[in-house]
């Protein structure tokens, strides 16, 4: 069939669209429960100000955060990156038989999200670029004979914008680029990203760049704020649910970062809907008419769709923030947006969770086969090369209930976070509640969009 190239070449089973009645019940549930939540159950800020922290037993903490463990994790990360680049460049160029596309788009990008939510910032421990950066700065200090600082301080106005650019590039590669699932392309992109990250760390210092500019640290780090486990220095401890999220620093680019996280999933879902199957080709022929080659026209049309999805998410959120600001207070709209940006993290989580649930459960199983033969050369390193995907793992009905529950729970968490921040900003609880009507509308809108996308899949 004609039409745009759908870059998701990995899926073997697609989900059935969520039936309308289930969507209706979920939407009603969100409306009722959120009005109740606003009604006065929560009248003083409870999150964020003095987050409680129960330390884990000292031997466990110091073992997990010890130098040898850190070094081993870092080495494992670098080793994985090297294997992937090797398999991508020199292995068989097949999306299904080479481990690279499945590892990067399923195991890493999607699979590491639930791991971060449950176990904390695991990516930070295994981040290959952090290991490379730390090794580099250690070696440079040894050579110079003194501890070296970074050449330049990280510019405050740069904020999270480099991470935003990195995530947009990744979304382009995954969702739009016609070669995005080709092992060689993914490996080349990984090498290019490694170069950019080393440059960033070299200029602004390892930790400043990782904390703000590095895309995957920003992505997984945001989700890791859900984890019950928190790290303070070399001490690990437990914290209450949602208590980690208010700590998301309101740096410039934070709203954009979350808009990209939500918008890219939105666009991925929107690509499967009827409106896009009529709009996409029309956009594409429009670009065709102004001189773009057919392939480029398709990419531009999809790029336009992705940009529009991100802009709509960001715009809708900022509209709610502007409404909330109208209640009073002397914070500017953009600064206020950053202060409420952390409430978008649960939404980003459930958009990704609901959308990629079965993709992870099914395509994730392919990893068993692929680790034994990462480059598609007929190897069987671990005796798992014959594993197949069990598509009976989760039925359609269970999938629907999990997806809908995720969407509803995520938006309730968002509401709680925004409400708590409003209480912290306004001394008068009534004023805070009034300002929250606007953000309630935003959350309900995001819920509606998420459920609509799930009810439209392949309809």
């Amino acid at each position, binding site marked *: *069939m004609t039409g745009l190239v759908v870059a998701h070449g990995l899926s*073997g*089973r697609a*989900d*059935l669209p969520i039936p309308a009645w289930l969507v209706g019940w979920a939407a*009603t549930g969100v*409306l009722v429960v959120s009005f109740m939540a606003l009604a006065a159950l929560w009248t003083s800020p409870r999150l964020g100000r003095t987050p409680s922290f129960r330390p884990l037993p000292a031997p466990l903490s110091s073992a997990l955060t010890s130098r040898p463990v850190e070094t081993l994790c870092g080495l494992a990360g670098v080793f994985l990156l090297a294997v992937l680049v090797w398999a991508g460049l020199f292995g068989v160029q097949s999306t299904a038989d080479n481990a690279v596309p499945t590892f990067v788009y399923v195991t890493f990008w999607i699979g590491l999200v639930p791991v971060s939510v449950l176990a904390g910032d695991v990516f930070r421990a295994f981040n290959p670029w952090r290991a490379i950066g730390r090794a580099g700065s250690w070696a440079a200090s040894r050579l110079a004979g003194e501890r070296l600082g970074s050449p330049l301080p990280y510019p405050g106005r740069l904020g999270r914008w480099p991470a935003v650019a990195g995530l947009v590039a990744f979304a382009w590669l995954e969702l739009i680029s016609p070669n995005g699932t080709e092992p060689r392309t993914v490996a080349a992109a990984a090498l290019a990203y490694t170069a950019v990250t080393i440059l960033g760390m070299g200029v602004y210092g390892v930790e400043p760049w990782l904390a703000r500019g590095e895309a995957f640290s920003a992505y997984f780090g945001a989700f890791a704020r859900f984890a019950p486990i928190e790290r303070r220095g070399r001490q690990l401890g437990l914290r209450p649910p949602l208590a980690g999220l208010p700590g998301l620093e309101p740096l410039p680019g934070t709203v954009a970062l979350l808009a990209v996280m939500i918008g890219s999933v939105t666009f991925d879902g929107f690509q499967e809907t009827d409106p896009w199957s009529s709009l996409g080709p029309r956009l594409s022929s429009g670009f065709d008419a102004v001189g773009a080659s057919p392939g480029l026209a398709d990419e531009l049309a999809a790029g336009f769709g992705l940009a529009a999805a991100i802009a709509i998410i960001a715009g809708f959120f900022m509209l709610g923030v502007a409404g909330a600001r109208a209640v009073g207070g002397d914070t500017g709209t953009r600064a206020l947006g950053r202060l409420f940006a952390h409430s978008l993290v649960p939404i980003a989580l459930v958009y990704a969770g609901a959308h990629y649930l079965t993709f992870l459960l099914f395509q994730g199983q392919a990893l068993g086969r692929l680790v034994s033969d990462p480059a598609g050369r007929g190897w069987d390193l671990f005796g798992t090369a014959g594993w197949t995907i069990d598509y009976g793992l989760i*039925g359609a*009905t269970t999938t629907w209930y999990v997806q809908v529950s995720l969407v509803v729970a995520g938006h309730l968490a968002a509401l709680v976070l925004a409400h708590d921040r409003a209480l912290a900003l306004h001394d008068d609880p009534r004023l805070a509640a009034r300002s929250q009507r606007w953000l309630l509308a935003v959350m309900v809108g995001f819920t509606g969009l998420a459920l609509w996308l799930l009810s439209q899949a392949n309809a």
Partner: protein
Amino acid sequence: MRPLTILATLAAVATLTACGAETTSPPATQPVATTQTPATTGAPPETEPPATTETEEPATTAEEAVEKETPTATIRLENGAPVGGAARIEVTRGDLVTIRIRSDTDEQIHVHGYDLTQSVGPGRPATLTFAAELEGIFDIEAHESGAHVAELVVSP
């Protein structure tokens, strides 16, 4: 604006389901036409046949009973591409599905998820018969041409 439309639809859906709640709560009893009767056509006050809008449930079960037999789809390939575009084969879980394929070129037909493969060629039509035990949407492909032949939709 888009957000507004979403909000409006959401509100509409919410109220719709709130109304529908009454009919769903007594599942075992005969579907009573309380909510719907005044709305339908209006004119005759004491007609015997029940409101057609309410008979959705018995209708689908009857249809299911017929479909339970063996849903059959016939696909014809010319030059590796399906005539009339990729078909959508909709079945219910547990159905015994039969897919007949004819092709004017040599082809390997592959049903994803079920991982069934069958070769066809000129004068050698293929028949795939299997129980649809996995729910979801599965692609059916012709491996030689790479064409998307059909989509198998298995509902619960």
